[in-house]
C-alpha cells in the first residue's frame, strides 16, 4: 500500500519534472524567431478556422438560452431589463471563455495532439532534429503562441455573438425593447468584465495548445498510441481549463 502510494508519488513528481523540462526547452527556443515566426502565422490561421465556427455556433445558442432563462427566473419580480445584465455578464465572464475553451480543447487540442503524435511515431520529429531543427521552435512555439494570441480574439467574437443573439431573443421573444436591453447591459458593466474574460481566454489557449503539444510529442506506439494521445489531450486540457477557470475567479474576482 505505502509502496504503491510511494511509487505513484514518484511518478507524479517525474511527470511534473518532465513537464517543467518541456516548458524550459520551449522558453529557450523563443529567441529563434526566424524559425517560429512564419509558422506561427500558419497556425494562427488554422486555430481560427478550426475553432471559430464551433465557438460562434455555441455562443449563438447560449445567448438565446440565457435570455429566456433570465426572464423565466425573474418571473416579473425582477425588472425585465436585467435580462441584458445577465446575458452580458454571463457571456463575458464565464460562458464565452469556458464554452469556447471546451470546444477549442476538443478541436484544436485534439488535432494538435493527433498531428504531433503521428509525426512522433512516424519519426518525423526525429527527422526534424537530424535536419538541425529544434522541434520546440519548429512545432511547439508556433502552436502555443497561435493559441494564446488567437483565443482571446475568438472568445471576443463569441461573446459578441452571444450578446447579439441574446438581444435578438429579447426583442423577438420577450417583448423587451432595445433601449431596455442596452440599459441592462450597461448597468453593472465594468471594464474588468472585458479584460477578465479575454485574459482568461488567453490562458486557456495557452494551456490547451501546450497540453496538445506535450501529449502529442510523448506519443508512443503507432496508430493506437496516437488515438490514446488524442483522447488524453482533450481530457487533460478540459480538466485543466476548469481548474484554471476556478483559479482565476478566486484570484481576480474576489
Amino acid at each position, binding site marked *: 500500500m505505502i509502496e504503491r502510494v510511494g511509487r505513484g508519488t514518484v511518478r507524479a513528481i517525474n511527470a511534473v519534472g518532465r513537464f517543467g523540462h518541456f516548458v524550459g526547452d520551449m522558453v*529557450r527556443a523563443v529567441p529563434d524567431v526566424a524559425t517560429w515566426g512564419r509558422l506561427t502565422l500558419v497556425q494562427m490561421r488554422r486555430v481560427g478556422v478550426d475553432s471559430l465556427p464551433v465557438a460562434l455556433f455555441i455562443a449563438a445558442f447560449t445567448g438565446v438560452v440565457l435570455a429566456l432563462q433570465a426572464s423565466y427566473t425573474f418571473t416579473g419580480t425582477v425588472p425585465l431589463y436585467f435580462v441584458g445584465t445577465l446575458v452580458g455578464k454571463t457571456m463575458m465572464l464565464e460562458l464565452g471563455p469556458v464554452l469556447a475553451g471546451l470546444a477549442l480543447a476538443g478541436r484544436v487540442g485534439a488535432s494538435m495532439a493527433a498531428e504531433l503524435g*503521428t*509525426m512522433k511515431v*512516424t*519519426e*518525423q520529429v*526525429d*527527422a*526534424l*532534429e*537530424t*535536419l*538541425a*531543427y*529544434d522541434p520546440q521552435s519548429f512545432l511547439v512555439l508556433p502552436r502555443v503562441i497561435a493559441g494564446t494570441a488567437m483565443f482571446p480574439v475568438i472568445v471576443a467574437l463569441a461573446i459578441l455573438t452571444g450578446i447579439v443573439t441574446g438581444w435578438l431573443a429579447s426583442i423577438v421573444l420577450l417583448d423587451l425593447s432595445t433601449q431596455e436591453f442596452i440599459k441592462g447591459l450597461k448597468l453593472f458593466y465594468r471594464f474588468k468584465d472585458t479584460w477578465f474574460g479575454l485574459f482568461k481566454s488567453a490562458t486557456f489557449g495557452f494551456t490547451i495548445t501546450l497540453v496538445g503539444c506535450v501529449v502529442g510529442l510523448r506519443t508512443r506506439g503507432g496508430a493506437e498510441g496516437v488515438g490514446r494521445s488524442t483522447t488524453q489531450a482533450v481530457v487533460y486540457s478540459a480538466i485543466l481549463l476548469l481548474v484554471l477557470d476556478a483559479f482565476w475567479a478566486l484570484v481576480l474576482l474576489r
Partner: protein
Amino acid sequence: MIEFQDLHKAFAAKPVLDGLTLEVRDRETLVIIGYSGSGKSVALKHIVGLLHPDAGDVIVDGRAVSTLDRPALTALRREIGFVFQFAALFDSLTVADNVALGLRRRGLAEEEMAERVREALALVDLTGTDERYPAELSGGMRKRVGIARAIALRPRYVLYDEPTTGLDPVTSAVMDRLMVRTREHLGATGVVVTHDMRSAYTVGDRIAMLYEGRIRQVGTVAEIQASEDPVVRQFIEGRAA
C-alpha cells in the same frame, strides 16, 4: 571517424545495447547486420543524439555525442545525413520542400537551394516529382526522397536505416546502386543498417553483426562470408535455427 565506446542502453529495464563497441573508419561504408529488434536502429540514433546512452558513448571526430550542448549537437547534426527506416517525410510538405527543409535551415539562397534540390532528386532518379506529396508516392519512392533529403545537405556521414527493407528485389538493387553512387558523389562515410545480405555484400566495405547488444563479429565482406561463427553463419545463410 565514428566510434561506439562500450555503449549501453536499456528500455524499461530491458537491455538493448549491452557494451557495443565498434569503429567506423573515414570514407568506408560499414554495414551493421542483425536480427529484428536487436537494436540496430537504436545504435544508429545514438550517433546523432536522438537517444541518450545509459553508459558509454558515441564519439564522432573526437566529440562525445551525449555530452554536447544544443548548439554543438546542432553543428554535429549538420555533418550527418540520416535516412530513416520508413523515410519519415513530412506529410504536409511537397517532395521538393521536404528536400529543401534542411537546406533552408542553413540559410542558403533561393536559387542555390532550388539547384541543390534538383541535383539531389536527379541523383535518386526522381526528377519531376517536386510538387507531389509523400502520400502520393510508393514506399520505394519515399525512401528515395528520404535519401535525397539527406544528401542534399552534402553531409560527411550518411546513416541509412534499412534502406532496402520492404522493397522488391529490383528496387532494392536500385537503392544499393544509389548508395554506392552517393558515396562516390559525396565521398561520404556510410553506416548502413540492414538485414538484407545481398545489399550488405553490394554496398559494404566491412560488415559488423550486432547480436545480444554487442558486436558478434566485424570484418571485410570476404571475412564475414567465410565466418565460422555459427551465429553469423546462421544469419547470413538465413537458416531458421
